[in-house]
């Protein structure tokens, strides 16, 4: 028997009334891989996580977790997954330890076992000092860590994280990233959704870009950036330099002819290695004065803009304004 993929989604469609939340999504995650679903609010990320976590049945298509169908074998899937949501799903009136003990017992563990596991997780997530306090006294970051701890109670091989760091301050974000990286090092397969490009860039092996219920691109962060033409050299010429001379001097470094705009020259270079040194040498041999020169990689923001025609963060901001209104 060939080892099935950890997560396999094919042709999944989900409609809510007239709204098509998922419009034929295919996705594959190998064992131990981190896949980031990247997209603006309303793109369908959460819907896909809910389908995989057995909370929603798709209208068409199939979804499997560890080779188990999420509809027909839902009970078996639930024993093997952990879910941490966008809203820290912990009982505010219970203490941190009581929350984790309750979840452990609902997985079928005895009270003493569940309590011991709870202790272990609180220690790992740096919450031991707050173990006996009702969670309504916790900060946002602490609640999110407890929520993640609750998802890990049964040591699930597959973990779904729905916007794990949305709304957290930068320090809590960094510490949560470190925890997720630790889990991945232990071999957990992670599917996470995010609207933050830097988060996907840092955590994910594979990034799946989703927009309006469709996957519009998939690959490593480098793959996606390469689609925009790899490395780019940006050169600010001196005011009195001759742009035409600069173009002639740099032409051999690129497949396409560089075009100067207002003294700024963009060159898509073939080779990253030595590009700066070579450019400086060629320009100085041609007698062209340079004010500033830098090698720049396209960011995921550029990727998103190129793929969808709109930025990633702009949409998120709009959605947030809507919520505030």
């Amino acid at each position: 028997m060939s080892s099935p993929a950890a997560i396999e989604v094919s042709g999944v469609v989900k409609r809510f009334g007239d709204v098509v939340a998922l419009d034929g999504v295919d996705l594959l995650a190998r064992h131990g891989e981190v896949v980031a679903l990247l997209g603006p609010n309303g793109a369908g990320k959460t819907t896909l996580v809910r389908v995989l976590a057995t909370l929603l049945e798709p209208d068409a298509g199939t979804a499997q977790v560890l080779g188990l169908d999420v509809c027909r074998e839902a009970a078996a899937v639930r024993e093997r997954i952990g879910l941490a949501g966008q809203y820290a799903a912990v009982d505010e009136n219970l203490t941190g330890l009581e929350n984790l003990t309750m979840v452990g017992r609902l997985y079928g563990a005895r009270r003493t076992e569940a309590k011991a596991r709870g202790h272990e997780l609180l220690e790992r997530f740096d919450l031991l000092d707050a173990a006996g306090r009702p969670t309504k006294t916790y900060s946002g970051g602490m609640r999110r860590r407890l929520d993640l701890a609750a998802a890990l109670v049964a040591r699930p091989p597959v973990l779904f994280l729905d916007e794990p760091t949305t709304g957290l301050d930068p320090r809590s974000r960094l510490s949560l990233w470190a925890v997720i990286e630790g889990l991945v090092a232990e071999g957990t397969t992670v599917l996470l959704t995010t609207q933050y490009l830097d988060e996907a860039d840092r955590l994910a092996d594979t990034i799946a870009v989703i927009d309006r219920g469709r996957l519009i691109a998939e690959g490593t962060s480098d793959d996606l950036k390469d689609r925009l033409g790899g490395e780019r050299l940006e050169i600010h010429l001196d005011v009195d330099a001759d742009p035409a001379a600069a173009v002639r001097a740099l032409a051999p470094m690129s497949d396409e002819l560089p075009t100067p705009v207002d003294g700024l020259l963009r060159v898509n270079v073939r080779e990253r290695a030595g590009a700066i040194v070579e450019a400086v040498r060629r320009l100085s041999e041609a007698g062209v004065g340079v004010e500033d020169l830098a090698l720049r990689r396209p960011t995921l923001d550029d990727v998103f803009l190129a793929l969808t025609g709109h930025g990633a963060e702009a949409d998120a901001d709009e959605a947030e304004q809507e919520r505030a209104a």
Partner: protein
Amino acid sequence: MRRLVTDTLIIAERNLIRLPRTPELFIGYTVQPIMFVLLFRYVLGGAIRTPGYSYVEFLIPGIIVQNAAFAGFATALGLNEDTRKGLIDRFRSLPMSRAAVLGGRTLADVATNALSITILLVTAVIIGFSFRVGFPLAAAGVALLLLFGYAFSWFLAFLGLSVSSPETVNSLGFISVFPLTFISSAFVPVASMPSGLRQFAEVNPFTIVVDAMRHLWLGAPAHNNVWAAFAWSLVIVAVFAPLAVRRYRRAAGR
């Protein structure tokens, strides 16, 4: 099946742990019923004629039934909050029994209802209420109260899972429960109502349950009301438990 029982007990424990930690909830179960008993007894009681019984005797079986029905409000509000905060999503992603979250909630209501009944009965005795029957019938009355309150919790569980906000739970809950309890024999004799209301009051399950309580505690004539009261409770569970579980399976956080 064993899973259903253990998971239900775990959830019931979770809902009872919170009780002493949320003073506002605790006051709802204790001070509020006492307040209503005192207001009815001393403010309205003097103006209401209840042939054959003092008003305290007449009132206590009625108000205690109303109170049992309201015990389930904690379930309606709690399930609504759990859904909005994503806790229901967490429970539904766990390999636990599908009926246990609701079963545990409603079971916890039985415990809180028992607490309210005790407090109300102590208050009642202090202001002059006494059982006119032996212990077995008085105990049967308490059993009916617990069962009827349990049944009503399933109706309120269904309500809590069906509407989007706690404010809606409150207003819909009050709009549906208040007229039912007032247009019944709970606070005044049905014979004193105008004819349209009287006909409604006579078939109202609250009247049936209250009359059954008066029979069990005071020896009032009951006709078939005791059996009918138990039957009504079971029918309410049979209708609303499946409806609530169905809602639960489809519940979605925000």
